[in-house]
């Protein structure tokens, strides 16, 4: 089952499976410069506020997420697994990259070869 996750900071959406953590799906956006951290619940770089939606979570380090934060849905994207569509607000250190780099700063694809783009030839 795949769900839609909306990043309220930018209005972007991405798909995330129920067995996949939100950070891993976000990394698939291939946004150059998203400074993901440890991806394993220890460093706090990927902290998000879940504004809407249901999710399951795994243990994250108390050094970076307090019990009070966790109770109100302020959690680490790398330890969050959606169980419905989610609306999230990025609040951790990666917020700068999310908000300042525009919609697509990394294009994955190949330009088709045309008659105008001949292979290099020796001259």
């Amino acid at each position: 089952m795949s769900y839609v996750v909306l990043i309220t900071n930018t209005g972007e959406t991405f798909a995330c499976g129920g067995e996949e953590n939100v950070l891993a799906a976000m990394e698939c956006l291939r946004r150059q410069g998203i400074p993901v951290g440890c991806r394993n619940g220890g460093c706090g770089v990927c902290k998000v506020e879940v504004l809407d939606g249901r999710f399951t979570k795994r243990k994250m380090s108390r050094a970076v997420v307090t019990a009070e934060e966790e109770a109100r849905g302020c959690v680490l994207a790398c330890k969050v697994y959606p169980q419905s569509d989610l609306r999230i607000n990025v609040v951790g250190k990666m917020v700068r990259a999310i908000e300042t780099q525009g919609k697509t700063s990394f294009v994955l694809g190949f330009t088709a070869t045309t008659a105008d783009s001949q292979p290099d030839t020796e001259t």
Partner: protein
Amino acid sequence: MALTGVLRPGHVALRVLEMGPALKHYVDILGLTEVTRDKSGRVFLKAWDEHDHHSVVLREADEAGMDYMGWRVDSPATLKRLAADIEASGLASNLGWIPAGEHPATGERFRFTIATGHAMELFAEKDKLGNDCGTDGPDINPAPWPDNLHGIAPSRFDHCLLYGDDLDGAVKLFREVLGFSLAEQVMAGPDGSLMIAAFLTCSNKPHDVALIRQPVKGKFHHASFILGSWEQVLKAGDILSRNKVSLDIGPTRHGITRGETIYFFDPSGNRNEVFAGGYIHYPDKPTITWTEQELGPAIFYHDRKLNERFLQVFT
């Protein structure tokens, strides 16, 4: 014996969020051997070429990071002398003795907190389990490596890199009280007089502990394990990718220490390194200085630039 006093990093105690995934990482993928567990659930591990009983201690906790790092000294007499010297120096806090047996197969330990907020220990006695290389008994007619290696299989726990604020106080303690030398340093500031990184050694290695100045107390950057060759570092990259381990950076080379390296994260976000190479350090080798402007190649010699994650992600 020419190498005296503090001999080597003897153990690192790490906090992990969940023991099951941690053991899969440290045993199955990194390739350490589980030696024993204690009643509180701590797990004690060793790398294959370490003769001592254990070098890595894992404890399940609510926070990731490092509890303490332990140093083996050459004798009980040295342990008593250094404990007194540390106390007299005023450069450490929270001094105290931990009774023999609190770590299995280990004598009493003297624990103290250095100026960067990290707990350190000295100990003189830990049982020798051996490295399984002897063919006609332990240490008799040894083979070059044992038969039962698996995973990345580094030969030893090598060093830690730690983040903290009062670098000067910590460096002073290591150099002036514990007899370490400063193999390399990174200097910054308008006149290049502010030390922002120190690579300290008590041995022939380029570093046994490294400290970086950051406005935090007691933070852990990585624990490092040594491999025999650059090719083994590349193979470690294969093993990490096959097992979908969270990668930090590498394989690449450090300018500092010249080590060939790859960094990755355990399942609790604690950074690990496996590396090879470096150089032989002697106490009379001049200290190598790196300037702030060359920090990129100092840390990552091939990319020649620092990534944000290396500086900002720690536990």
